């Protein structure tokens, strides 16, 4: 039944082998090359679409991110928030639990913070209120993450789709409470700056320090603790984990509680150290971006500082382009998309080696 291909006599033109390991210099070189290629490609596209000199466009991008002290602080703060959400999804990803629900988990944390402010901000002394609010945010987000984890652990329910759906439920829940609490059904909750966290240094510093400490802690947890090791084993092979006596169900549930708790903390920072209110766009898709950040950094919390900085820089730069050159704001998304696609593509060359067919005289 099977056809014998004529061409099988010849070696195929391109042949792939998997690399065992690659020196870190080489892997950085490949990634740098990918980013440069992406920038060149994007430059050509910008010139075609906007008729602007691409160098000017990149200059405006750079200035948009680093142009003034205020912008730099903004950049660092936004990087830390994205980094925080990326940290949250990382433990789950390391055990191949595809948590696409960071958006919802963070939103629930933010909603809890706003709810605390609205409901009993005036009933407690401020320090006690802050403590209650922090605990409440962490607990609610952890519970939100726990629900899909329990079903995954006991019934092997698909976690990607479960967590995706939880995002939309979280959004609708926020809409419900906004309509309930907003004045005259406006669906907007007024800012409550009197319950904001005290300002340390400047308005961003508290969040920045919290997230950086968290980054180091998570690195140590994943790298050097027994629980971190268990996560890696479950990720590599569930059967191996069962064989050496790891309780896989327990690991899945525990890890997702950690994921959710970190999301809750970020949600808390977003509200209590930032907006002082909640809206459905507060997280703004960063729950999904975090997946890319975490993946680009090979699930290593320290590398994530770099990858989140890159993505936030691209975002800031892109929005500057749109104001400077009065082009449609979607160009920013397009450039970010292209650069990310190039980085995703270059991973291939890090993992695989491409051999071309050598021209041999004997064939003829």
């Amino acid at each position, binding site marked *: 039944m099977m056809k014998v291909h004529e061409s099988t006599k010849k070696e195929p033109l391109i042949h792939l082998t998997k690399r065992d390991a690659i020196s870190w210099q080489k892997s950085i070189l490949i990634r740098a090359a990918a980013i440069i290629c992406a920038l060149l490609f994007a430059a050509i596209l910008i010139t075609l679409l906007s008729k602007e000199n691409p160098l000017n466009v990149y200059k405006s991008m750079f200035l948009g991110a680093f142009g003034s002290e205020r912008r730099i602080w903004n950049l660092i703060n936004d990087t830390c928030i994205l980094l925080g959400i990326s940290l949250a999804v990382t433990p789950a990803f390391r055990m191949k639990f595809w948590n696409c629900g960071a958006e919802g988990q963070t939103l629930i944390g933010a909603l809890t913070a706003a709810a605390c402010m609205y409901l009993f901000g005036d009933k407690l002394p401020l320090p006690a209120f802050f403590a209650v609010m922090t605990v409440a945010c962490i607990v609610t987000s952890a519970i939100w993450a726990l629900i899909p984890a329990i*079903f995954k652990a006991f019934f092997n329910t698909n976690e*990607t789709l479960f967590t995706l759906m939880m995002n939309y439920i979280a959004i609708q*829940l926020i809409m419900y409470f906004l309509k309930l609490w907003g004045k005259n059904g406006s669906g907007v909750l007024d800012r409550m700056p009197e319950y904001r966290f005290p300002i340390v240094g400047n308005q961003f510093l508290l969040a920045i320090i919290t997230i950086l400490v968290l980054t180091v802690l998570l690195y140590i947890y994943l790298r050097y603790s027994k629980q971190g090791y268990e996560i890696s084993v479950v990720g590599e092979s569930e059967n191996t984990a069962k064989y050496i006596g790891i309780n896989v169900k327990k690991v899945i549930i525990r890890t997702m509680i950690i994921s959710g708790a970190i999301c809750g903390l970020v949600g808390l920072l977003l509200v209590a150290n930032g907006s002082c209110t909640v809206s459905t766009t507060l997280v703004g898709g960063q729950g999904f971006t975090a997946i890319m950040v975490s993946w680009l950094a090979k699930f290593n919390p320290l590398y994530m500082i770099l990858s989140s900085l890159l993505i936030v820089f691209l975002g800031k730069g892109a929005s500057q382009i749109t104001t400077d050159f009065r082009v449609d704001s979607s160009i920013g998304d397009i450039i970010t998309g292209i650069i*990310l696609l190039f980085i995703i593509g270059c991973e291939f060359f890090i993992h695989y080696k491409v051999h071309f067919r050598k021209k041999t005289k004997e064939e003829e």
Partner: protein
Amino acid sequence: MTTFITFLVSTVRLGMTLLFGATGEAITEKSGHLNLGIPGTMCVGAACGCVAESIYFTSVNGRMIPVLAVLIPIIATFIGGALMGLIYSFFTVTLRANQNVTGLVLTTFGIGISNYMIAQVKAEAYTFAAARKYFTAGLPFSKNLGWFGELFLSYGVMIYLAIAVAILTSIVLNKTRLGLHLRAVGENPATADAAGINVTAYRYGATCIGCGIAALGGITFVMDYLGGNWEYVIDSIGWLSVALVIFMAWRPSFGILCAIVFGAFYVASSYIPGINLQTKELFKMLPYLVTIVVLVVTSIRDRKEDQPPAGLGLNYYREER
């Protein structure tokens, strides 16, 4: 009674929009690829369709031939969607990139591109409204048949096309050799490869065709459900379609019924009398809650027929076994 009929009609219109997305995604998932780029694909497809319609409208000075006015956007949409599928499969099949990450990037990228394309023709946006009447024109005699005509014959061409595509897809998947091979590729690519099936070709083909079909959902949403207005909510329709795939257990013909149920949950909040604004928001959770319930129930029952393809989400590399 009339409200009930309007409710049903609106249910079917939204449901069949979702059915396009779900059928397309089901084809892709049957080949073993979980394409989370579907929302982006639907946006790009819809934008291609709108731009093509706009170009056609201006080139004939508004004297559009009804058949062409419908056919041109459909073809453009399909091509636009298939191109997104091509990008996705280049990254996940050829370069073996992570499927979730690639899909999510394509969604961001797709929304960006579609917004850019629409911004370019915004000045001629009235053309969509002009084209709309060709998309929503029901059968001419449907008005004389009372509720029966309204309920079964009043829809635009895309609604019937969605049903036809779903049925056709089911037949191809379950009754033909092509479908058998495709399912084999999705269940166990290594075995399929050993049996002489070209895994790469099947995965490319299924993703491109699937994305093309899913994109039709985007243009249906703009031209039929939104009545020719471009709104930035197509991506949420995309996620609902991905959810619908699970709800219908990867069976497009069964999906026709599921899509109507889904559509009913989605539009229900506007038709239930006497509920206040905030409760309305709670009602909008229903499609997602129902998906979760279905997801949980199918995983607890653990029936072979209801499970996702065994190779879903895993890239295949021949030399890695």
